[in-house]
Every structure is written in structure tokens, then in C-alpha cells.
């Protein structure tokens, strides 16, 4: 079942060329969907449209099967149900107290104080930030701020969480920790995750579905494996294969080794390589 569907969604900034051009996207409930594309592909515009910051010029958005109305009530409702974690946590955290910042969204939902407190504590546990909850916001590292930003969205208990470039600016440990965190939260709460990214290497590890966007248009979409089986298409839209998948592709196409070309993770590649090694040795 799709929790979000867009039909023919179009938008342009001040009458310039379309930032979104007839976008049809389906986001399956409870899964992780990646939206891939280089800078300026239209990913952020799409998210701002889903969050009601921008009103589409034409086309429709359906949430849980119901058409979204872009009036005050409709937008507020959408913001309750879809949370966005922005790329730079500095843009998102404006309170100097971490706890106060996290509570912001929940307070705005008009919940009782006890409920807000309980949710804040839950979000702190979920994101593992208890350790620095009493530090001032500006004393946190970039990765810590990112977690606080995620907690500030989780506290609203949205049905969908959108993350714009969640790994940007993080070192490798930080990046994999954040992605691990998201997987855990998804597992525990059943939340639907949407990630915008251009880091191809994380796609096969953490995503179920993917869409490729370029110049405001959806180029292709589907299961991750399917998307990664179209290297030429990816390349013609500023993307590349994950490095492991690229190696497999070369081994297969150039070196005529019979490895599984869609193996994109280290474990899949390892299995694929072991297979040809044993086949070769068994064959002779």
C-alpha cells in the first residue's frame, strides 16, 4: 500500500523553468524509499511540496489514499503526518536548549505537557542522545545536531519521515550510525522513510525502493535492484552505480566473468565472487 502518491505534480519558482515537472511518485508504507538525483534535480522541491511549504501549480498529492488540500487545515494536517529532517541541522535547531528544541513540534501539536514530556523522553531514547541532552545546542558536533534534529521530528510521531541528504557532512562512522538509527526506528515504529541522497553506496544497504530524478522529472523508479540494473541510465543523470556494483559490472561486462551484476553490497559481491571462484575450480 502506498502512503503517499503524487500525480502529475508540477511546480516552478517565479515562472522559471519547472522545478517539478509532472512528477508521479508512489511511496510504499513502512518501507524506505530513496529519491536519487544530483544537485538541482528537484528532490528538495518535491519534499517542500509534500510538506506544504510550496503549493503545487498543478497535479495532486494523495496521503493514505486521500487527496491533500493545500489550504491551512490541509497543510497543518500534512505537517503533522510528514516530518522533514533538513540537510543542515543548523537550519533546523533554533533553540539553545536541546530539550526545548525537541519539544517544539510536540508543543505545536497542542498536546498536554505530560504527553509532550513523555514523547520528548521517548525521542531522546530512540535517537540515543541522552548523553548530551543537557549541553547547549551550539556545543554539539554536527552528527549530534543531526540526531537532535531527527528527535525533534520524531517527537511529532509522524507517519512519514523525510530526510534530505542524511549523511551529508558526516564522517563515515557518523553516516553509518545515522542510517543504522533510522533502520532501528523504522523497525520499531513502522514509520515510512524517504531519503534524498546522491550517495549511491548507501542505497543497496538501507533502501527498498528508489526513484531517480533529474531536472524536475522522474526518470525511473522501482525496487533498488531494478534501478541498479540500469547503470547507463544512472550515468546519464549525474549518478553512478555504487562502487561495488560498478566493480561487478566491469567484471561481468569487460572481463566476461559470470558474476551477478546486481550485487551492490559487500556481502552480495562476496557471495558472487566466491561463486565464480568455486565454479571455475569445480569446472576444471
Amino acid at each position, binding site marked *: 500500500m502506498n502512503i503517499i502518491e503524487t500525480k502529475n505534480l508540477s511546480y516552478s519558482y517565479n515562472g522559471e523553468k519547472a522545478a517539478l515537472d509532472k512528477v508521479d511518485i508512489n511511496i510504499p508504507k513502512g518501507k524506505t524509499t530513496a529519491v536519487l538525483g544530483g544537485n538541482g534535480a528537484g528532490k528538495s522541491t518535491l519534499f517542500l511540496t509534500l*510538506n506544504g511549504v510550496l503549493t503545487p501549480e498543478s497535479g495532486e498529492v494523495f496521503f493514505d489514499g486521500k487527496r491533500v488540500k493545500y489550504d491551512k487545515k490541509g497543510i497543518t494536517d500534512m*505537517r503533522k503526518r510528514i516530518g522533514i529532517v*533538513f540537510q543542515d541541522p543548523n537550519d533546523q535547531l*533554533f533553540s539553545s536548549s536541546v530539550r526545548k528544541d525537541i519539544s517544539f*513540534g510536540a508543543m*505545536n501539536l497542542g498536546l498536554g505537557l505530560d504527553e509532550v514530556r513523555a514523547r520528548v523522553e521517548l525521542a531522546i531514547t530512540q535517537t540515543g542522545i541522552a548523553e548530551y541532552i543537557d549541553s547547549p545546542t551550539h556545543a554539539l558536533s554536527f552528527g549530534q545536531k543531526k540526531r537532535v534534529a531527527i528527535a525533534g521530528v520524531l517527537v511529532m510521531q509522524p507517519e512519514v519521515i523525510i530526510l534530505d541528504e542524511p549523511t551529508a557532512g558526516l564522517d563515515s562512522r557518523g553516516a553509518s550510525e545515522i542510517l543504522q538509527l533510522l533502520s532501528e526506528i523504522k523497525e520499531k515504529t513502522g514509520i515510512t522513510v524517504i531519503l534524498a541522497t546522491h550517495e549511491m553506496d548507501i542505497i543497496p544497504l538501507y533502501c527498498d525502493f528508489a526513484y531517480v530524478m533529474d531536472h524536475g522529472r522522474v526518470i525511473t523508479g522501482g525496487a533498488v535492484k531494478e534501478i541498479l540494473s540500469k547503470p547507463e541510465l544512472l550515468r546519464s543523470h549525474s549518478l553512478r552505480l555504487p562502487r561495488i556494483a560498478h566493480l561487478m559490472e566491469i567484471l561481468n561486462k569487460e572481463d566476461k566473468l559470470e558474476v551477478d551484476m546486481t550485487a551492490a553490497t559487500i556481502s552480495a559481491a562476496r557471495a558472487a565472487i566466491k561463486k565464480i571462484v568455486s565454479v571455475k575450480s569445480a569446472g576444471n
Partner: protein
Amino acid sequence: MMLTDKYAYSSSLSRVSPEAKMLFSLVPLAICLLFNSIALSLVTIVIMAVATVKFGKMSLPTYMGFIMVPLGFMVIGTLTILINRFEQGHALLMGLQVGQYAYGIDAGSLNLSLKLVLRALGAVSCMYFLSLNTPLSDLFQVLGRTKLPQIIVTLMELIYRYIFVLLEEVERMIIAKDSRLGNINFKTSMSSLGEIISMLFIRAYQRSERIYAGLESRGYNGQFKTINEEYTYSKNMYIASVAVIILLLSAGMTERFFYI
């Protein structure tokens, strides 16, 4: 917010020397102000619109959108001047009597207001010609050659650059705030906007230190020396300026002389 800046850079006249464009716009602006004549103002409005739309290649609806910007002030200001207090029995075109006075419009105030509106529109068109066809950095270059203290011109250049950096930053912050329902009611809007502005100030402060380090690393020694931009010398622009000035002066003189 509509900034003229983007249009200035994409104008067909953007590479014409800024001095020529200043001559073409600022002298007519002064004439417009000095003469305060209906005919002259009308001519100015038309000339500047044609120059920007036809020669600067700006779309007419966009230009009209810009012309609408100062109307807010004009409506308030002009209504106030238009409606006056008169003694009873004064010949009014339109009016209302309150107590011993009549409040309304008479021929004189109508004439004054009409002249004022047209003069202001004429002057605004002149300013628009300059701002919609001249990148601000070109104006700084001209200012840099005047007697103005160098430090002021430098500050202008820096402020202009950082306006865009901060605008982008604050826009992103406000979007992020609203996505967490930060505009749900007046009190929340107010306090969260205040906090965002404070945060913006702190970020601006920190950025100013990084920028200074950036300047130092490129050998900044207290002076902002850079090469100058080069422009196409436009004889036509100067000829056009002189022609327009003569035209405006004669229109103004004629009206004054014959008092149409």
C-alpha cells in the same frame, strides 16, 4: 520579495558602462523632480518603460509588477494630501462636512496630487531603469572612483554579498520551523521567529570570523584592491541620454510656458 538584482544581471544593457546608464536615468530623474510637470512626467514614464522593456529586454508584466511595489506608500501618502480641510462654502469636487469645516477634495488639491503621483511615478521609472539594468557591483565601481570614503564602498560591497548568504540561510530556517508547525498560532510564530533571528545573528557573527580568516588567507592587508570590470563603451547610450534630456527639458519648458 522581488529583488531587482536578478533582472539587472540578465538585462541586455547590463554590460553597458554604468556611467552612461546613470546619465540616462539620474539626470532625467532630477529634471522630473525640478519641473514637477504633468507632460514631462508622462514622457519620462513612457521613455523609461520603453528603455527597460524594449532595450533591456524585460517582460512587460514583470516591469509592471515592479511599478506596483511603491504604490502602497503612494496610496496612503496621496490620499492624505488629496483630502484637505476647508472653510465652509469652499468649492469642493467631493467632500464631507464635519462641524465647522468641510473635508474633501478641491481643484487645487486634485491638481497637486495628480502632479505628485505622476512625478513620483516618473522618478520611480528612472530609478527602475538604473536598478533593473545595472548590476549593483557596477555601481560600487563607479562609487569607488568618487570622493566617497573607500571604507563605505567596501562595506557596501561586503554587505551586498552577505545579504544573499543570510537570506538563503534564514529562508531555510523559517521553512524548517514551519514544517514543525512553528506558525500554528501568533504566540508560537512570534517567539520562534525571534529565536530564529537570534540564531541568525549568532551564525552571522561566527561567519564573519570565518570570512575574515578567508580574506587573510588570500593576503588581505587592509585594502580591498581588485581589478575593475570592463564595459562596452556605448556611444548610443550617451546619444540617447542627451536626446532624452533635451526632450524632457523642452517638454517641461513648454508646459511651464504655456501652462497647459
